[in-house]
């Protein structure tokens, strides 16, 4: 199942080794490899839980399996992506169907 990141994100660094890191700390040395690395927008994530990234507004589906499991329309995806963007900037959020200023938003098409 594949999804494509819409913004830069921290992702697990495959070169990181927790045991080596623990050893370095015990020896008082600096472990040179970061646990995470930056993945730019457009990075393809191939993972059984990739659909969750779509529902979080972090990615868009890259295959039908992911699109179906996420179950969002294009318009809903735009909204969750915008909401995630606002959250990442600390601005607040609104999500489809949720009341805003006492008024219920129209259901997404």
């Amino acid at each position: 199942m594949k999804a494509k990141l819409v913004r830069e994100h921290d992702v697990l660094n495959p070169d990181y080794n927790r045991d080596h890191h623990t050893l370095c700390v015990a020896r008082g040395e600096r472990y040179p490899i970061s646990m995470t690395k930056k993945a730019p927008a457009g990075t393809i994530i191939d993972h059984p839980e990739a659909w969750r990234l779509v529902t979080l507004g972090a990615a868009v589906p890259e295959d039908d399996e992911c699109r179906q499991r996420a179950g969002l329309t294009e318009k809903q995806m735009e909204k969750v992506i915008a909401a995630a963007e606002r959250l990442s900037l600390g601005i607040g959020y609104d999500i489809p169907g949720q009341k805003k200023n006492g008024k219920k938003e129209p259901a997404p098409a």
Partner: protein
Amino acid sequence: MSKRSSKGTTLKIEIASVYTSVAQLISLNGPGPEVQDTETPTLDQVGNEIAHDVTGWVEPGTSDFEIYWDPLLTTHQTLTSLLGAPAVKNWQNQYPVGTPMSYSAILKSLTPAAGVGEMLKASGSMQLTGLATYPEAPE
């Protein structure tokens, strides 16, 4: 010596190898590891103090957080899904300065709370599966 504001601190959970923030975080406490020690007095010792020694083990500890809970918010739904399908997850406490504090942990509980005059909240608790790696200054 300096004082750092906690504003901007985030709790991140790894989903499908990507770290995403848990939204609407109010507080984040821990992890609190504990070095194990044992009492080692002997019958033939001179003084009367109860001596302690380290055993070499460290309990990785727990980490707790509180959020303004929104049952419709996807990041919060990810947390509740971990109660139905428990799993060891990678987490990060990102403080305003330094590299993140990283650890693996099991989400043990997520308790919603509603009260008169209060917003909907939830408090969560995690059990670490190993020692956290602590923030370092950038090179």
